[in-house]
């Protein structure tokens, strides 16, 4: 188990974050470039000394600013895969991996090492010099090296960044099964939403050093409540609207603007009640994949929000296409290739965008492009 909090200043940049990870759980650090993710990992590993904080790893306090405790990095038992894999240039692949082992085990062809080599698909590279490796091979050697030390906490800074999707998926599975065998807490930095969702038991969104959101990945990254988070995780439609009516009994309110009239639920996805005042200006988020396109106005549908608009553009966005519709404000809708083909969508065509009230969510402190 690992928990703690830190506060760290570097000039203007202030990092304040906390975490609590159970063994076998993966906590994802998500955030834009320069948010302080690497700094957080370094502080936990003991490579930076935060100004204030308390860090526990495996039940041991390794840092406490109040009690003047600072356990040096080599006694913290963390495995840290750094963003740039600094492999030791004087050692070959297998010696790099076995670096942390005592000498006798290192040369005995340790089976833990052998298992790491095969799990990370490094067979045949054992005796390569490290400058004879490709980028992805280096990253895997680095991961194996970090795991070989049998850490009590795993810190991974974009471990799968230069791997192809196949290998990435395989290693993700590998990591999961390793965690099932020997459950240790993992803190994982990633930019990849899919990775965060696939691996994370919890996600924390960092922005400019502040934790702006935290929780179950699906909640945080699925219907993110905060503007920055929403933008980061890719909520495509953010609408600046004015609350015109609230209907507490059926749990929705009506927001208007740009010629649109939206029904929005009053509770957010965590069940908490949101109570913007009447005539307050709010930002409403709708994911492009939650919008249905139709050639005719759908009748007798339960979907409360329907708007007609003209197709502005159709762009490839795997696994489907993104259709931008001008309904007073631009709405981006994600549809499958099949739907595109069947509906024969072309630029300029008039279409209906349909989505349910429950697909809308309030986003705080976000200035949409429309208001700039």
């Amino acid at each position, binding site marked *: 188990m690992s928990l703690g909090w830190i506060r760290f200043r570097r000039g203007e940049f202030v990092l304040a974050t906390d975490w609590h990870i159970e063994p076998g759980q993966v906590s994802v650090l998500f955030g834009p470039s320069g948010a302080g993710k690497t700094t957080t990992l370094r502080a936990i590993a*003991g490579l930076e000394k935060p100004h204030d904080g308390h860090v526990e790893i495996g039940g041991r306090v390794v840092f406490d600013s109040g009690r003047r405790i600072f356990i040096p990095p080599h006694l913290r038992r963390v495995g840290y895969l*750094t963003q740039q894999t*600094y492999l030791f240039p*004087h050692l070959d692949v297998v010696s790099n991996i076995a670096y942390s082992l005592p000498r006798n085990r290192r040369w005995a062809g340790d089976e833990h090492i052998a298992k790491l080599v095969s799990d990370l698909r490094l067979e045949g590279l054992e005796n390569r010099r490290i400058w004879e490796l490709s980028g992805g091979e280096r990253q895997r050697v680095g991961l194996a090296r*970090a795991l070989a030390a049998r850490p009590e906490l795993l810190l991974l800074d974009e471990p799968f960044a230069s791997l192809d999707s196949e290998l990435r998926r395989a290693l993700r599975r590998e990591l999961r099964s390793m965690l099932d065998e020997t459950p240790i807490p993992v803190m994982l930095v990633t930019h990849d939403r899919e990775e965060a969702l696939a691996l994370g038991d919890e996600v924390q969104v960092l922005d400019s050093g502040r934790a702006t959101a935290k929780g179950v990945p699906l909640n945080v990254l699925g219907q993110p409540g905060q503007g920055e988070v929403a933008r980061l995780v890719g909520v495509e439609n953010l609408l600046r609207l004015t609350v015109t009516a609230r209907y507490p009994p059926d749990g929705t309110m009506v927001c208007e603007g740009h010629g649109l009239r939206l029904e929005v639920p009053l509770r957010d996805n965590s069940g908490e009640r949101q109570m913007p005042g009447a005539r307050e200006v709010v930002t409403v988020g709708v994911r492009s994949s939650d919008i249905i396109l139709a050639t005719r106005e759908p009748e007798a549908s339960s979907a409360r929000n329907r708007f007609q608009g003209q197709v502005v553009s159709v762009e490839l966005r795997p696994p489907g296409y993104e259709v931008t519709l001008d309904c007073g404000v631009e709405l981006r809708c994600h549809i499958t290739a099949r739907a595109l083909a069947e509906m024969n969508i072309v630029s300029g065509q008039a279409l209906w965008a349909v989505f349910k009230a429950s697909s809308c969510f309030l986003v705080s402190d976000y200035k949409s492009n429309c208001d700039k």
Partner: protein
Amino acid sequence: MTIGRKGKHHRLTGVVFPGRIAGMTKVPVLGVLGAASTTMCVLFVGLPVAALCIRAVREERLLTSLTSESAMTALRLSLVTSIAAMVVILVVGTPFAYVLARGKSSLLRVLDGLVELPLVLPPVVAGIAMLMAFGRGGILGPALEATGISIVSTSIAVVFAQLFVAAPFYIRSAKLGFQSVLLDYVEISQTLGVSPWRTFFRLTLPLAGPSIITGIALAWARALSEFGATMMFAGNMAGRTQTMPLAIMTAMETDLAIALALSALLLVVSVAILSGLSIASRRNWQSRS
């Protein structure tokens, strides 16, 4: 790929040495400069050395003078004292160099600027300075006499003199070596649970290896040729303080030819050791990571 096919391949395509383009590029001006400078250095050093060796070899008494007991005694003393000096330099100089490389205190910065200071003194003056420090009438004289230790005129004094003139070379090179080891490597080693002490031996030392061995070669060569400070501080007693350089200078008083023969002997022995060190210092790793 067999050698034969490789050769054939060359003939077919005319592209020599496929593979990574080395750092030495084939730009004419650099090549010419490099060749010219190499030639100049080789000639400048090689001519005198060659002249010396030729003269030594021409001498009919060469063999007898080389195998004379006094020559052997001096050579043995030179080797023993210079090895002892190198051991002390390694043991004491390595931590000092490490502190200079990694430390941040301003005191260290001042010291860092003064590492070469002992080199500036003409060796004889250095010998006198050492007499004034460690001799009977020197600063530490009373203290040393009280403990019954006498340094001057012993083999230890020879080692001291060699230490004084040779240590800066080692310390400087080793410091450069330690500085060239990225802190990132050290950090990673520590997060892997390897203590700073073991990190030093498993990581820092091997990575700084070429610099360290270069330092050893420089310091050792300097120690081996040390004459002035030894002469002043240790004296010139055969078997006790008469190292090869002192034996050479003594021989010069009577017979230049013998002196030159002894010098050639010193050169030959040194070539062996220096070549060994040079092979050891060849880095078998590239620094790409």
